[in-house]
């Protein structure tokens, strides 16, 4: 470097030295007042100390500002004069008594802001108001109409607080509620409210471990907390039902103290008692009836458990079926019978299963119900008693038509085609006895027979079918003529009383006439040919 820095030039050094000398001298002469960033507060104190009435009259900076090498702090120098404030430190009810470090005066109180400027300048949002025992969590701090300033609650000085101050604002918010509330707890709001978790409309009773639901949500605070005028008394409110509801116990204490075992918070009735715990589960209709129907006079102990004990008056059987209703009935209703008839002496089969109980048990009478068919069905007997009273000999329980009579046991065993026809085809009008067993009783003589035979059909026919028939009587003309094979209609096309030879093989009428010019009656061939042979006419 050719030249020294400007500050190291002669003019620079002279200026530096001159400045240091002048500034230093000024500081000493002014007692360091030249470093003061602003005028001190000039408000007169309530009492002077050493002839000083205000901060502005303090002659030296060192009166408040402790030097680095000196012991003590600025706060201690403040308190050396402000002895009354120091006294507050030991009072937890005072403003300074709740501060974490009250000796840091400069945190809230600042100086050098002018002769008339306030000495207390702190942000209300930063002030640990909770330390005073009352949080401002629910009070928006500020100076607008929607917020609360110090003067909104406090007088002067702001460490004071008058009982009843809360009411001034809160009555405007909820006049009726506040009047009722203060009517039973008084006006010492801070005795219960801490501004943070025990205040007004947003108080959450559930957080106390006692949720207000049902009927409890409807009653006023005094309903449970009557006479409690502070937080401790409120918290000491008993939680057991009987503590409040003993007078309302309709059971006279017979069921113990645990109301919640049966009752809901919503109301005394309906209850939520788990009847299973009483070894008597409420099913069907039992679940629908009111408690008092079984527990007369709301007496629960000793309540009968058997059906008949309660339902004896309802018994339409007049006790003749015994006392075990559950044998036939269930809880769903008397009409729903659950009797297993198979377990009785008369299992239900066929149509009996579908029949109504009343159909057999007329008048609801079950004892002595007849078990013989005819005893019920006598009026339905199509046979008018001709076969006795044991219907089951022929009929099934399914329907009357489903009969299974063994005809072989009769005088007319069914064979052949007789086995396939319905009963009524022979037993017209359901008349079964007496009935003729002759064929002609049912089967008329056909015109083809031309009355040649009597009613004894079985001479030629079997029961299998009318045809083929087997002629077993005397027949002068060979039935096996030219392979006729017993086919009657081959020679007797119209009736058995007539015959004709024409229409077969060479027996054409023209040809016969040509060959029998000498015969006048060409219809009676048998007369000349009795054996059917050409040579017969010899």
């Amino acid at each position, binding site marked *: 470097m050719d030249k020294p820095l400007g500050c190291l030039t002669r003019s620079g050094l002279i*200026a530096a030295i001159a400045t240091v000398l002048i500034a230093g001298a000024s500081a000493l002469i002014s007692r360091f007042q030249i470093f*003061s960033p602003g005028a001190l507060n000039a408000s007169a104190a309530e009492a002077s100390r050493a002839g000083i009435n205000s901060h502005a009259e303090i002659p030296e900076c060192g009166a408040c500002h*402790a030097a680095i090498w000196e012991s003590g702090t600025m706060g201690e120098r403040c308190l050396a004069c402000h002895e009354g404030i120091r006294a507050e430190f030991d009072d937890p009810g005072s403003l300074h008594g709740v501060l974490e470090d009250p000796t840091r005066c400069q945190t809230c109180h600042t100086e050098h802001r002018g002769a008339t400027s306030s000495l207390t300048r702190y942000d209300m949002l930063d002030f640990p108001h909770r330390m005073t025992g009352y949080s401002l969590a629910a009070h928006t701090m500020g100076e607008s109409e929607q917020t609360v300033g110090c003067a909104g609650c406090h007088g002067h000085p702001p460490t004071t607080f008058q009982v009843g101050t809360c009411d001034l604002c809160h009555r405007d918010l909820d006049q009726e509620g506040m009047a009722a509330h203060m009517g039973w707890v008084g006006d010492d709001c801070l005795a219960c409210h801490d501004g943070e978790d025990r205040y007004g409309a947003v108080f959450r009773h559930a957080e106390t471990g006692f949720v207000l639901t049902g009927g409890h949500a409807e009653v006023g605070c005094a309903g449970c907390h009557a006479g409690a005028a502070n937080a401790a008394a409120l918290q000491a409110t008993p939680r057991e039902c009987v503590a409040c509801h003993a007078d309302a116990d309709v059971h006279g204490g017979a069921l113990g103290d645990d109301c919640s075992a049966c009752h809901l918070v919503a109301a005394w009735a309906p209850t939520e008692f788990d009847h299973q715990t009483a070894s008597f589960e409420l099913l069907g209709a039992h679940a629908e009836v009111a408690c008092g129907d079984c527990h007369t006079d709301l007496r629960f102990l000793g309540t009968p458990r058997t059906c008949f004990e309660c339902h004896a008056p309802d018994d339409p059987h007049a006790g003749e079926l015994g006392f075990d209703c559950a044998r036939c009935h269930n809880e769903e209703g008397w009409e729903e019978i659950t009797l297993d008839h198979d377990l009785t002496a008369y299992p239900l089969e066929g149509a009996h299963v579908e029949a109504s109980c009343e159909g057999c048990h007329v008048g609801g009478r079950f004892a002595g119900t007849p078990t013989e068919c005819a005893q019920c069905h006598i009026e339905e007997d199509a046979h008018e008693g001709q076969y006795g009273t044991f219907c089951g000999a022929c009929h099934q329980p399914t329907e009357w038509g489903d009969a299974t009579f063994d005809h072989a046991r009769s005088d007319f065993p069914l064979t052949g085609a007789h086995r396939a026809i319905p009963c009524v085809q022979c037993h017209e009008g359901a008349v079964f006895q007496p009935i003729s067993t002759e064929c002609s009783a049912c089967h008329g003589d056909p015109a083809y027979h031309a009355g040649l035979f009597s009613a004894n059909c079985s001479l030629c026919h079997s029961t299998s079918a009318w045809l083929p028939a087997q002629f077993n009587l005397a027949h002068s003309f060979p039935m096996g003529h030219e392979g006729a094979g017993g086919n009657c209609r081959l020679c007797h096309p119209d009736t058995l009383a007539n015959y004709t030879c024409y229409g077969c093989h060479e027996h054409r009428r023209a040809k016969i006439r040509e060959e029998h010019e000498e015969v006048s009656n060409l219809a009676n061939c048998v007369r000349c040919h009795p054996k059917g042979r050409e040579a017969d006419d010899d």
Partner: protein
Amino acid sequence: MRQGTELWAAGFTIVGVGAVYLWVMLAFGTPRAGGLVGHGLGVLGFLLMISTETLYSLRKRAVHRPWGRLSSWLKFHIYTGIVGPFLVLLHTAWSFRGLAAVLSLATGLVVLSGFIGRYIYTAVPRTADGLALEIETLREQLAVARQELQEQVKGVAWEPSPEAARGVRASWRVVLGRGIEDFYYRLRTWWQLQRANPQLRGQLAKVRGLELRNIELQRQVASLGIARRLLSIWHTIHIPLGVVLFALALFHIGAALYFATLSR
């Protein structure tokens, strides 16, 4: 780099920082000198002022180990010399009392002195590296400029300006008053161009530009010695002012540490 860039940059910085400060002031009140914002402004401003005072001086003297162009360091010197005091001004919280008031006054004086110094400094023609030109070089440049002007005015109805017709004589008024003279010249030229034939307007503007360059060179040739003497005088005043400023600032910082920061 354009001429006056550092002034624009300083202006934008001042407007930007000023806008933020204004918003903080309206939203939260005037930042206290001892608060986070006020203290930060003061510390940053002082660091910039320290830079102003030292870095450019060191670079000027670092002939054998130069780092960066001298003109760039001058721009940085001017930029920090404007922005630094502005931040310190915001740090005052508009309270001028005791030593702080004297310190503010000294800061203002140094800044004002700096503007004057820059004005004188620009009267001395320099190379792009900031080195002052010698008179011979200036005369050569003037001869070239005259030749160029004569060629350009051929065929143009042109009359020399009063400044050109009057000529330039060596005087300290020439150095200090050149700004006003140039301003009037530019204003008159603009007026003439507005009334000139539009077809000849471009050539006329070029001629006037060359004429102004001739005048400036004549001025520099004539007053180079005077300009250097004025710059030397200014240094003699400006350097002690700066020293006074920093001496007072150290007193202020010491008192702030003693009475506030280190106070228990």
